[in-house]
């Protein structure tokens, strides 16, 4: 019995030892060069690095909650430096937000230049669109910052600060 146990123990340890790994088995990386997008779907992992700040984790493989201030880097569309573009934010104001905060006002700034705000008094899905002047759309990437005037603070319904739910944001060519 003792001999069997010892043989079993030795086998259990020696078999893995036969395939000793000095370091670690390398795993292929995705080297395909991702380029900057003009339209970012917030659930798309390929463009996640363009979500600069204020976005929470992806939920339902479809959308992300944001904080009161959130920002995204977007590539201006072709000819935008000449014709300008349309900024489009597709988002939802959920019931819990409206029932607590009554109204929310959303504003945006492109490269630091503010665009006019809009106020929402009902829960639902919305699209915030604003024309963007061509002179703001030079360069490879443009910083677009959004501000929601009110948000549910951390600890009330969640440990996170919650403002709106965003599905996509981007520039559309004119």
């Amino acid at each position, binding site marked *: 019995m003792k001999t069997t146990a010892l043989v079993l123990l030795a086998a259990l340890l020696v078999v893995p030892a036969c395939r000793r790994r000095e370091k*670690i*088995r390398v795993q292929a*990386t995705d080297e395909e060069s991702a380029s*900057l997008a003009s339209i970012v779907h917030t659930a798309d992992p390929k*463009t996640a690095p363009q979500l600069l700040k204020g976005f929470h984790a992806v939920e339902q493989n479809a959308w992300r909650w944001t904080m009161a201030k959130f920002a995204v880097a977007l*590539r201006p569309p072709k000819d935008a430096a000449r014709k300008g573009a349309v900024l489009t934010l597709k988002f939802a104001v959920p019931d819990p937000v409206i029932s607590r905060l009554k109204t929310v006002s959303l504003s945006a700034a492109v490269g630091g230049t503010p665009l006019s705000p809009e106020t929402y008094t009902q829960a639902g899905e919305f699209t915030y669109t604003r024309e963007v002047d061509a002179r703001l759309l030079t360069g490879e990437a443009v910083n677009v910052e959004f501000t929601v005037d009110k948000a549910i603070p951390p600890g009330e319904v969640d440990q996170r600060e919650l403002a709106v739910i965003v599905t996509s944001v981007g520039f559309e060519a004119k």
Partner: protein
Amino acid sequence: MIRAAALWLVPVAVCLALYWPGLTVFFQQDDFAWLGLSLGIYSPRDFWRAMFAPMAQGTIRPWSERAFFMGFYRLFGLDPLPFRIWVFLTQFANLALIAAITRRITVSRAAGVWAPLLWISNSVLISVMTWSSGYNQALCAFFLLSAFYCFLRGWYGRQWIAFLLGFGALEINVVYPAIATAYALLLDRPRWKKTLPLWLPSIAFTLLHRSFAPKVAGGPYLMHLDLSIFTTLGKYWLWVLGPIRLENITTPPAWLAPAASTLLTAGLTLWVARCVRRRDWKPLFFLAWFLITLAPVLPLRDHASDYYLTIPSIGLAMLVGQAAWTANRIVSSLLILVYLGFSLPVARTAARWSNIRSHRIERMLAGVARARQLHPDKLILLHGVNDELFYTGILDKPFRLIGVADVYLTPESAERITPKPELGFVTDYVLPQGPTLAGLAQGRIVVYEVGGERLKNITRLYEATSPLQLKAEEPRRVDVGNPLLAYLLGKSWHAREAAYRWMPGRATVRIGGPRTARERLYITGYYPAEQLEKGPVHVRVSVDGQPLPESTVQRGMERFDFDYVLPAALVGKASFEIALEVDRTFTPPGDGRELGLAFGVFEVR
């Protein structure tokens, strides 16, 4: 014989079925720190230090941590399977010992089957069953159970061997004399004098440990010897019963866990009271096991951890095991049903989660290894690291184990990862903003997004977005071993060596200024022990020409760290210059360089 083997195999089979993901788990958290011990061994002296020098909180666990990790790493490298097999084998031995002890005390074969089954099913074992650093609990349990089994059999010499070896597994081993004495007083009065000599090694170890352990003035390891001990005991009792831990995996109705915990507590209390009325003291001994082995951690009010229940839960398992056999059949069935009904799903789900989490870390390491192959001369930046990956997979510096240096997190990570200064500073792992922008512009950085099935190269995307949010400012943390920060060093510095860089007699460093008057300057470095034998080295530090108090590196301070109050005039400045001067240098034979001190990091925080 066959029947006995079959009874022993039942708990083993349950263990394997329940914790199979724990057998195939990868390394996590402290595992990397223990594995890294092997990397610092260049001489027999280094080996003995790695084996026996007191570590964090003065712990010396040569068998369960040092020898376990260093030995298996030496044999099997970063293959976690042999480590896990060894942990499981130790647990199988523990199951056999629990069965034998329970059977001997209760004189019941059924109790001897139920006790190990109930113990291995308890979800508080999740850490030890899925985390190699939890091996100290399994091995300490093995020595405690072995010593106690030998005591029961009257094998006193073997008892002493197991007891003394147990000190090399975990400090909790000091309570063994209390277990033996409690047993003798409650169930075998004539033998209580035999337990008295056992107290001497425990007292000696306690005194020795107190002399090694650093004085704790605050934080989670501060001992609270007050009424909070009872609150902590209550918390542990609820955890070990199990129902409350269902909240770890789901959101049960609010009444469910309290109701189930009350039911279990009331059922056990009534049964124990009935046994005591009949002068059956066995349940009291099992409760004593629980309390005695938990007692050393009860004063740690702010550091309650489920894995501290690994050994105490043996007492509860033996108690419920006896109840299962001797109590009213309806009562015992109900107790076991509630106990297992809550523990099994939590243990199974948590084991799976731990496995999944650990393989995220493995994928990251495997990806970084590939990235280094593809970009041998570039600094690797990781983007998208979340709290979980950072604290379980990066904090304990795993990249050195795969031979990859110069891996940092993107500057944004410092804001996205929740600070836990008691564990470590996120900034130690982050490449500052200014050097990131400079490195990207020079093509010396490659950026990877983590979190997916494999690492994704996002260098191009990051180059485009980083100027929108990063500032070309001087960093407030200068790691002199990082080549991207070399532009902040004066001309006299020598070339970097691993994470260090030597200065000659004098050197300068430029660093970002403090933001508030409370921020200080922290400096870490290294000086060879053999040079310190020749006398101390005095270090003069000045900032923008203003001298700071002189520091001295002396014997026993091979790895030194100093901190200084900064002049108020520096607050708000974009950067300032640190000038360093030592009063003694040396030139190693065959080297030719004049060496003053080797530095690691300068930081303002």
